[in-house]
């Protein structure tokens, strides 16, 4: 091999080409065809799949649900993750142990996280409703998983529980790399802890928060497993996400062309978001802060 650099990378390129890049191209091609899985019938339908999907009320509610799920989860994960980082950024053995322990939910399979919270939210036998019953809410009155708004709360809670540690890990690393002098100087000048946080620590953390927020947004947008295991997309499609909608088009209705169109729409959404994050990240932090 004349170019060892390329030779060394070839196995990775081959895998990516076969399992990711080529299927991406194929899914784009497929999105212009009607292709039924069981009959195997394939015919060119131009933009019909996209038109059919966009006119489908279920798809529109999947878009709404996904946006709500993503924005609420990421906001809460950022608040909780930053709070965790600030709280645990302290010396001592106790804090070191806590720092290692709080990443546990992130390490779990999302299936496990989903099943755990499904159990906790159970209306008749769940511990959550039992605790609420001590506060005077009769057992079984809050049907978490079969009431649309409450089901969304349950799904978002699971997502935040599992993924806030991700934000915490990144923000904590950012916090550790900050110099201590500006905070010390401000403290000497009589600034309050809140002022120090707001005007000195927080602005320096913006890049780390931005990275964590971008990753979480892209990952929450595609999340399948958590809504699937907690609610299965129900009740009455109230927690149906784009990923579940795609899955149903494919393996419930066997409309592969439509599923491909949804897949391509999700890819575009992700690409637009990723490009926006990269553009934002490449600007100086001051301008990012003033927005």
């Amino acid at each position, binding site marked *: 091999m004349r170019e*060892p650099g390329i030779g060394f990378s070839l196995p990775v390129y081959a895998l*990516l080409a076969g399992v990711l890049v080529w299927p991406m191209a194929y899914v784009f091609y*497929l999105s212009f065809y009607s292709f039924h899985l069981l009959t195997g019938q394939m015919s060119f339908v131009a933009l019909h799949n996209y038109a059919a999907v966009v006119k489908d009320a279920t798809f529109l509610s999947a878009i709404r649900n996904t946006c709500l799920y993503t924005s609420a989860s990421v906001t809460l994960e950022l608040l909780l993750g930053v709070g965790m980082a600030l709280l645990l950024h302290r010396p001592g053995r106790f804090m070191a142990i806590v720092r*290692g322990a709080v990443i546990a939910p992130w*390490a779990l*399979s999302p299936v496990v996280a989903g099943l755990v919270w499904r159990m906790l939210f159970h209306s008749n*036998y769940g511990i959550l409703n039992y605790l609420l019953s001590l506060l005077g809410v009769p057992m079984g009155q809050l049907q978490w998983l079969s009431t649309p708004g409450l089901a969304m709360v349950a799904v978002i809670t699971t997502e935040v529980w599992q993924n806030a540690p991700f934000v915490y890990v990144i923000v904590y690393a950012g916090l550790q790399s900050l110099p201590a002098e500006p905070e010390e100087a401000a403290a000497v000048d009589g600034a309050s802890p809140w002022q120090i946080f707001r005007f000195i620590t927080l602005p320096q953390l913006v890049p780390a928060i931005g990275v964590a927020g971008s990753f979480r947004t892209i990952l929450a947008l*595609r999340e399948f497993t958590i809504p699937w295991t907690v609610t299965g997309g129900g009740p009455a499609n109230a927690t149906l996400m784009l990923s579940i909608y795609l*899955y149903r088009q494919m393996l419930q209705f066997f409309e592969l062309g439509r599923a491909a169109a949804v897949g391509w729409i999700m*890819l575009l959404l992700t690409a637009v978001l990723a490009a926006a994050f990269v553009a934002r990240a490449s600007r100086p932090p001051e301008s990012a802060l003033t927005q």
Partner: protein
Amino acid sequence: MKRDAANRSRAITWRVVSGAAVLLIWTFFPIAWVILTSLKGDRLQFSIPPVLLFPPTLVHYARLLHDADFSRFYLNSLAIAVFSTSAVLAVAIPAAYAHARLRFPGRTASLALLIGIRTMPPVTVVVPLFIYFRRLGLMDTYLGMVLLYTAFFAPFGVLMLKTFFDGVPQEVDDAAAIDGASPIRRLLLHLTPIGPGVAAVAVLSFISSWNEFLFAFVFTAREAKTIPVALAMFVGETGIDWGTMTAGATVVMVPSVVLAWLVQRHLVRGLTAGALK
């Protein structure tokens, strides 16, 4: 005095301790509840108010142990995770070395591509891969699953290992190059210093494969079915069997939590290198 002022914001006060306590409850209550439920006998599962003190029983674990299907799925998970982790290392180590140390045309573009490819939603490729897995006979096979996982985790492996190669002094390479060592020999020289990086990538790949649900759910049925898929089936199909479900959840979560705890120092690099999940 200056020190005192700065330390004030990082002191461990009773408010900090109570904050940490709330955080630990939020983090561990659900996990502890699962383990507790898995140790309760069938009659206590649904008692309200919940029983906290009870004679623990391993009956649900015994049931899983004797369930041939469950053992099979557990073995599948283990085998697929081990194979795909080995494959990730095999393809990612040379590629990471190339991206860190060898100049080749398109290297910058290649790095950008590896980062960009990580943002693609896996659910998008499910449709075309489904068609081709059926045609190629890869449905419900170890080979199919290992191919998928290796392709999905390799870019992260390359990006993360590159940061470890970057940390090795350039002189190591230069001296070997002057002695006429081939690129492969030079790569082998680096394996000792980047050992911790290799271990971290291995552990994170293993966890990702062990925990993965979507692909396993779509592309396996029985022969290569993994534990997360089996767990998800506990819901709905058999009514609610919390004893078996929580025992199953416990045996799935223990390896991932222990492994993640072992590599926690390297998590930041792993997360930002390609955001695993």
